[in-house]
């Protein structure tokens, strides 16, 4: 039995593009190709949440589809629980629960319960066992009260929840989620993230793609950052951010500010930079202090400010984000 839930080795996917060149005199076809995934390798440990972070078109969904048997790789190898995806696709599908992007992965003309019953049967679960499982899932995903309404009447969040329930109907040890919170309102997205964390607590392995850095950061044990079909970084969120060697920023909201206190603060060794700004509308000072030694300086800073009879209304501590990591690696923002 393999130590890894998913092993991806030298995976590549190249799509042929037929481009027609039409002119009045001649018409010819040019065959070009587009490399969606270029020679990527990674392993997903059993029981971990592995995040795949990258902008749209980076190759996340293509990778997911190859792992879930929907797409044949141009070359490379994928093993799920030690089994080759190309040779044992039916066996592998019993171990995978996949939710692809978009809300149309279920029958809108069937009810939530009927959808689950259908997909349970398609996974060989019928009768009493299926009924118990479906009742449990409907309750777990808070769909039990509207289980007998057709899915077309559900909200986007409910559709996504029923798609998740569908993926869990066969109790798979590996769950693949492609952009699970895309298009959801903040509340539904937060609920869904909690559900994903519950999956992990149940011992499932989760492969998650997202272009929301906060989501990847919050959920993932490890993250692979993918761009232009290549993995450009792979580590824990903490290590990825640490690799930047970037200072942390503390932003204070103060009732007053002056040069004396600024000079006093500059005496503290680990402070790199201080920027102050007076917010005319809210009648308050906003002071950004960049420090290079993490949390140790915070106490010192607060004591110095309060000893000068300055009232701290609010303060926040900002670490480098995965967005910063992505910008550092690619020179562009995730949203570009």
């Amino acid at each position, binding site marked *: 039995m393999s130590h890894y839930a998913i092993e991806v080795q030298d995976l590549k996917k190249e*799509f*042929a593009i037929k481009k027609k060149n039409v002119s009045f005199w001649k018409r010819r076809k040019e065959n070009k190709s587009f490399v969606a995934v270029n020679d990527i390798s990674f392993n997903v440990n059993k029981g971990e949440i592995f995040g795949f972070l990258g902008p749209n078109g980076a190759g996340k969904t*293509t990778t997911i*589809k190859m792992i*879930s*048997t*929907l*797409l*044949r790789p141009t070359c490379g190898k994928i093993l799920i629980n030690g089994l080759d995806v190309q040779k044992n696709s*039916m*066996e592998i*599908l*019993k171990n*995978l629960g*996949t939710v*692809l992007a*978009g809300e*149309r*992965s*279920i*029958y*809108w*003309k*069937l009810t939530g319960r*009927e959808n689950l*019953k*259908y*997909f349970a*049967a*398609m*996974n*060989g679960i*019928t009768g009493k066992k299926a009924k118990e499982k479906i009742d449990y899932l409907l309750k777990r995903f808070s769909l039990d009260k509207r289980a007998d309404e*057709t899915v077309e009447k559900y909200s986007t969040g409910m559709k996504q929840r029923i798609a998740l329930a*569908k993926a869990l109907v066969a109790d798979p040890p590996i769950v693949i989620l492609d952009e699970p919170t895309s298009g959801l309102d903040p509340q539904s997205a937060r609920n869904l993230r909690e559900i994903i964390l519950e999956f992990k607590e149940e011992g499932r392995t989760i492969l998650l793609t997202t272009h929301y850095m906060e989501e990847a950061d919050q959920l993932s044990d490890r993250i692979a950052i993918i761009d232009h079909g290549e993995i450009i970084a792979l580590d824990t969120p903490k290590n990825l951010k640490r690799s930047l060697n970037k200072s942390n920023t503390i932003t204070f909201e103060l009732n007053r500010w002056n040069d004396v206190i600024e000079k006093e603060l500059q005496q503290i060794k680990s402070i790199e930079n201080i920027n102050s700004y007076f917010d005319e509308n809210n009648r308050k000072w906003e002071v950004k202090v960049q420090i290079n030694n993490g949390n140790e300086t915070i106490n010192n800073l607060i004591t110095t400010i309060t000893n000068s009879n300055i009232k701290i209304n609010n303060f926040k501590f900002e670490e480098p984000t995965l967005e910063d990591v992505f910008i550092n690696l690619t020179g562009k923002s995730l949203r570009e």
Partner: protein
Amino acid sequence: MKWQKLKFYMTTIWAITIKDIKIFFRYPINAIFRIVEPIMWITPVYFLAKSFQIGGENIGFKLFSGTSDYMAFLIIGSIIASFVSAILWGMGFSLKNEMDSGVLESNWLTPVPLLVQMIGRSIFSVIITLINSLIVAFLVWLIFGFEIGNGIVSAVITLFPMLIALYGIGFGIASLVLITNNANNVIDITNYLLNSISGNRFPVEILPRVILAVSLALPLTYGFDSVRGILLETNTLLPLYQEQLILVLFMFVGTAIGYFILNKVEKYCKTIGNIGHY
């Protein structure tokens, strides 16, 4: 095949059929249209044929076919043709429907081979066609009147291998739908050509020689011909047992070719990645 696997596949075929029944009845106008449509198509042809009658008999037609009961000839052709359509539409169009509604990938993510899924998708179509055909035949009998002999059981047994063979063609059609992403045109053209050239509404002997050669190469022609031969005692193209043998051979060859094409196209679609397109 192990018993467990067979049981699983039967369960999935049943689940697909139940799902199709539920979806079908959530569009109630479908059910009504399925009964009205065949009568709508048959009526003008019937009256046209009637206008050619001399002394209440289609004499020219009788010379070709061996019967002057054009309505019985027509209704048998229509029923068989509706089964052809049911299988072709059942496989090809349901695939396109699932593509359009975005659930094709969800189905391909279940541990059920595509072949089994395709069979499942055509079952309801065949059941509804059977019920529909009986209702239509009854209504046509009431409105226009026709007579058939006592060989219904023999006719059904003769038709059986042809229907199985049509599943093979259905796999091929489904494959074309997967490649082209266009069900309506592919199925309409195939359905129209197959049914017309095989003589669903006329004796194939009247076809020009070149088209007749194509018609004789189509096993479906012998399906129409033999069933009419049994039920109406029409003149058959070949001795009845030879036509039945052709249909049995067609069953093996058709399903094998269809299965081969389906497997190839499944691989092709997974290579070009078009199954998620809708």
